[in-house]
């Protein structure tokens, strides 16, 4: 990941990069994972500096919303607005967070996490 070279620095008001919007198009979970193909990343070059930074973070390794915010050093709320836009624009692929409902699906997930931990 390239180091932060944002000339606006910390002086810019946090939601200026979203043009003042504070409500995301969809409420993406903190741990929901996003991925970006080289094609999507190439397209993101034309989507503005901040969106391109986000695409770069996710290229080659899927990252959660929380990781994207941490690596780009943007506040979580701002990151969520931009990421939701990028999903709508097809610049990022959103993967599902853990299924919250359905006994079988939930048990299956817990079982996989449990064996994953035991194998560590």
């Amino acid at each position, binding site marked *: 990941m390239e180091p932060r070279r944002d000339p606006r620095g910390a002086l810019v008001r*946090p939601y200026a990069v979203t043009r003042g919007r*504070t409500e995301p198009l969809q409420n993406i*979970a*903190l*741990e*929901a*994972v996003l*991925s970006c*193909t080289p094609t999507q990343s190439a397209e993101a070059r034309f989507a503005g500096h901040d969106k391109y930074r986000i695409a770069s973070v996710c290229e080659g390794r*899927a990252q*959660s919303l*929380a*990781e994207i*915010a*941490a*690596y780009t050093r943007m*506040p*979580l*709320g701002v990151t969520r607005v931009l990421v939701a836009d990028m999903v709508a624009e097809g610049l990022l*692929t959103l*993967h*599902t*967070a*853990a*299924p*919250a409902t359905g*006994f079988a699906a*939930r*048990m299956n*997930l*817990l*079982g*996989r*996490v*449990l064996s*994953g*931990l*035991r*194998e*560590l």
Partner: protein
Amino acid sequence: MDFANYDPAGANRSREIISAKIVIAGGFGVGKTTLVGAISEIQPLTTEALMTAAGVGIDDPSKVPGKETTTVAMDFGRITMAEDLILYLFGTPGQTRFWFMWDEIIRGAVGAAVLVDTRRITDAFAPLDYFENRNLPYVVALNRFDDAPQYELEEVREALAISPDVPLVMCDARRRESVKQVLVTVVEHAMLRLQAEHGFAAPVG
């Protein structure tokens, strides 16, 4: 018919990556970030959220000239378990006044571990009450500090009024094996709770 290129059930699509999370709670300085760091494959990261409307009336911005927002930081780590499965560990902000952030952190979580420092046992009350109210499966982990008074687990259970069905374990947040055991206990407990809610009585093997 040629089956050589047959792709069952959408294998052509990019593979879905499922993520799960476990919440690590406890008072300030109890070792949450140490615990996350002991098992995470990445250095614990920090995400910052800005306190906006939720903080109005709690943090009066007029008292701090030039300060319009308060930053709430939370640390987290990552364990990639498979190509399509990632487990995240989220530490809660130490200050309990940031409840709005806690709601976001626990949404959809597998369960939680409440870390307890025997020197400041009362710090655990707020997270315990919180998880109890939100019906999130949780376990209590007593973090061993070398210079802290050593208590029996049952003494701690009594002091914190933890119900008998909540697992209580000792741990050393610096040690990977110990942290792993805490997380295994969280997931096993979550499975038991889920089974109980659906009318199964059999324990998890």
